[in-house]
């Protein structure tokens, strides 16, 4: 009998309902630092989490020490004495549709082969400028998750991950520029050179440094920067913050809160996307659902317990690892593309800013929609052209206001982590630069 089965059996003798999650995974990566091959990592991690319901209350514990399962059960029982009242039942087995999250090619790929990709990328960068300092990481992982509960659910899923990224730093006489790009997928992907080209192009644009006049200016967020603007909406739609009454979006389903061109989905059903899964961390089928549809607020995201407390249904967003209880969270965020190319947005602006990387996201009152960030990598646009990098400059606003000041939505979405989003172009945001 496997340890997770033994834990289920032992716990069921003492508790009314039981759920066991077992995870094991192995990840391998090669990394280059300061243009040199530096590390090979190999991490094989496993662990088990036990959630029980006893006398109507939830208990939880987890461990990576599989030698004494009895202690895990004891600790979960101890925690159930204080635990929250359970407002759900563990799901029973049912039919569900698959989402692809496993690619055998990732398993078969020997990570040592990535060494040559890294060298090639660094050679390319150094041929442009010998002063560049590059760090490269290529990694892959394989994981298995088994979820068992006392209603007979027993599902195992294998998943894979492959990621590659390059960061290039150039030190100048006064200051430095640091640009990083990467791509990742649950499938084996190629193209570190393409990613490198992207970084080199940005470094070229950043060569010239210019001052900016403060004011309310038109601003474009590249797909990479759009994540900053999506974060408040992710929080606002989080079922937990709805249940606590803390979200500014509470009671506003069906209300138009943003420009009618904005449609945003939470979508864990995209094959091979980072945030995808067929079943969530407590065995509920994943589903694609709009957060915003033509500017109208459509959905909150729930796990079983949070949904139970509000007499709603889980949306299949119970996200967790073995060491924690499920909690509602976003998966893949997609924004429906618009009709304007990024190049045309730039051409459209007489005096404004293109934002690509920011510093200080999350240091504001994100829950209320606030952002106030430093332009880590941003460019001044003059008469329809990028004229140089702007430094020591802050951009601030409130997402719920700026989503109503949309000038255009980009036509070409790009993947950044688990976001698949186009550029967004706003008519006027507050920009403060350092004029001396």
């Amino acid at each position, binding site marked *: 009998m496997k340890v997770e089965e033994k834990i289920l059996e032992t716990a069921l003798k003492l508790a009314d309902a039981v759920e066991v999650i077992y995870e094991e995974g192995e990840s391998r990566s090669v990394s280059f630092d*300061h243009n040199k*091959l*530096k*590390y*090979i*990592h*190999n*991490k*094989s*991690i*496993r*662990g088990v989490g036990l959630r029980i319901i006893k006398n109507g209350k939830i208990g*939880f514990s*987890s*461990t*990576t*020490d*599989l030698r004494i399962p009895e202690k895990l059960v004891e*600790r979960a029982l101890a*925690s159930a*004495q*204080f*635990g*929250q009242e359970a407002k759900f039942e563990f799901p029973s087995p049912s039919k569900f549709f698959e989402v692809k999250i496993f690619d055998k090619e990732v398993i078969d790929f020997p990570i040592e082969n990535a*060494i040559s990709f890294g060298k090639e990328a660094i050679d390319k960068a150094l041929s442009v400028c010998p002063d560049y*300092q590059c760090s490269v990481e290529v990694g892959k992982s394989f994981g298995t998750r088994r979820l068992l509960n006392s209603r007979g659910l027993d599902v195992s899923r294998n998943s894979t991950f492959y990621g590659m990224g390059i960061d290039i730093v150039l*030190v100048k006489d*006064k200051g*430095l520029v*640091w640009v990083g790009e990467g791509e990742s997928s649950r499938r084996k992907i190629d193209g570190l050179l393409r990613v490198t080209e992207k970084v080199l192009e940005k470094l070229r644009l950043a060569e010239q440094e210019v001052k900016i006049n*403060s004011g309310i200016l038109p601003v474009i967020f590249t797909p990479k920067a759009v994540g900053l603007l999506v974060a408040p909406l992710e929080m606002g739609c989080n079922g937990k913050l709805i249940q*606590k*009454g*803390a*979200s*500014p979006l509470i009671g506003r389903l069906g209300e138009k809160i943003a420009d009618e061109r904005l449609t945003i989905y939470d979508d864990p059903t995209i094959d091979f996307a980072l945030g995808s899964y067929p079943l969530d961390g407590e065995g509920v089928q994943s589903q694609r659902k709009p957060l915003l549809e033509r500017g109208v607020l459509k959905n909150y995201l729930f796990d079983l317990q949070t949904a139970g407390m509000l007499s709603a249904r889980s949306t299949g967003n119970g996200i967790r690892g073995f*060491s*924690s*209880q499920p909690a509602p969270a976003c998966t893949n965020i997609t924004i429906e593309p618009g009709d304007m190319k990024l190049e045309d947005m730039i051409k459209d602006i007489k005096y404004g800013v293109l934002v690509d990387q920011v*510093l*200080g996201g*999350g*240091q*504001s009152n994100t*829950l*209320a929609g606030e952002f*106030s*960030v*430093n332009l*880590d990598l941003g460019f001044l646009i003059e008469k329809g052209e990028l004229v140089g990098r702007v*430094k*020591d400059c*802050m951009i*601030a*606003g409130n997402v*719920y206001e700026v989503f109503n000041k949309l000038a255009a939505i980009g036509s070409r979405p790009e993947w950044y982590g688990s976001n698949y989003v186009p550029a967004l172009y706003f008519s006027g945001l*507050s*920009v*403060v630069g*350092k004029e001396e």
Partner: protein
Amino acid sequence: MEERIKRALKTAKADYLEIRIHEGSVTNINYTGKELEAISESDSIGGCVRALVKGGWGFVAFNDIENLPDHVVAAVEQASILRNSPISLAPIPITTEYVKASVNIDPRDIPLSKKHAICQKYNNIILSSKLIQTSSVRYMDSYGFTYFANSEGGYIAQETIFCGMSLLAIAKEGANVQRAFESVGDLRGYQNVLGLEAKCEEITQRAVDLLHAESVEGGIYTVIADPLLCGVFTHEAFGHLSEADFIYENEKLLEIMQIGKRFGRDELSIIDDGTLPGEAGTNKYDNEGTPTQKIYLIKNGILTSRLHSRETAAKMGEKPTGNARALGYVNEPIIRMSNTYMEPRDWSFEKMLEDTPEGIYCKGALGGQTNMEMFTFSPAEAFRIRNGKLAERLRDVVLTGNVFETLMNIEAIGNDLKLHGGLGGCGKGGQFPLRVSDGGPHIRIRNVVVGGR
């Protein structure tokens, strides 16, 4: 465990090899609003092997410590693939030591029911105010035992006990949502979380007050930072740049970061000290077995030292400083700060304030970030200064500075040093949150760019 580790070490065929095994347990309690969202005690065991062969590192992390000898072989094999030019590691004393944690009250002696009760008490204080929509009270303690041994014959077993709590109040009026936050946490023991009633009341009042505070107007301001924010400032504005792994292979940066170069006015001294008893970033030895020390990064305005691992110290011909730290057994040690602070001088806060006709007073810290050139840091609360006096409360204040300019813009340094840890920590290279303390006195900085609408 000692026998097992030493036996595995004997089989190692590498230029250098180290084994780290971590055993521990964590208690988590979290009230959010009326509900107890989490209460659990969890255990973990795991380890890692790091091998150096001809300048290349192989790193293996695992939970099945029974297979330790296999992992040693795997780490050596991996390192051998890299075939770099050999590197050296700066020498350290070969030590055998058992380091016991010293705490005022050991959280393991407190039953879960008591820890729960104190969370409930604080949570009730926060929720008792009518304008408070919800709360979060998070308690965490961890007990850890780390065995470290290397192929040079060093063997160190270190015990660590961390205990802390964070308190959050969220006030709401319509779509206007405001938060106030406090956090305590370090190696002092369970007393950290006792007697926080006044803090609960304070954040409750602050969250409510913020509902009617004005958003800051973006612009360039003179800023007075309190000791907590001065700590975050010190950490972001200079601490990270003094970590040698970013500079040791970068000639251009080495020129800029030459020892002896001026970085601030004569009054400015910045220290990293991993030996301060009870502070969050304290360890007797780092994760390479190097003893921690008090290091002046900047002394009287002049760059005097930087933070090293054994590898960067050897490469730069300097001494290792005991700053190679790993978040856990899944991570290799990288160069990190420990307890970083600015040395106090002679300004009293009252005099500093009186002497400031216009500006912003920033208190507490929500966070900070740096790209090694520019950095952001944000206070937990802020007030406008007018005619040398505190005026109206402000909100949504995020400050930015430039590493190469802002240190020169510190024009007054206070006499009231304080350090602070907390439940959060520092993030670097995917290793977050690493326990650190930051601190300093009140300071006044001119020409700070503040974002705003």
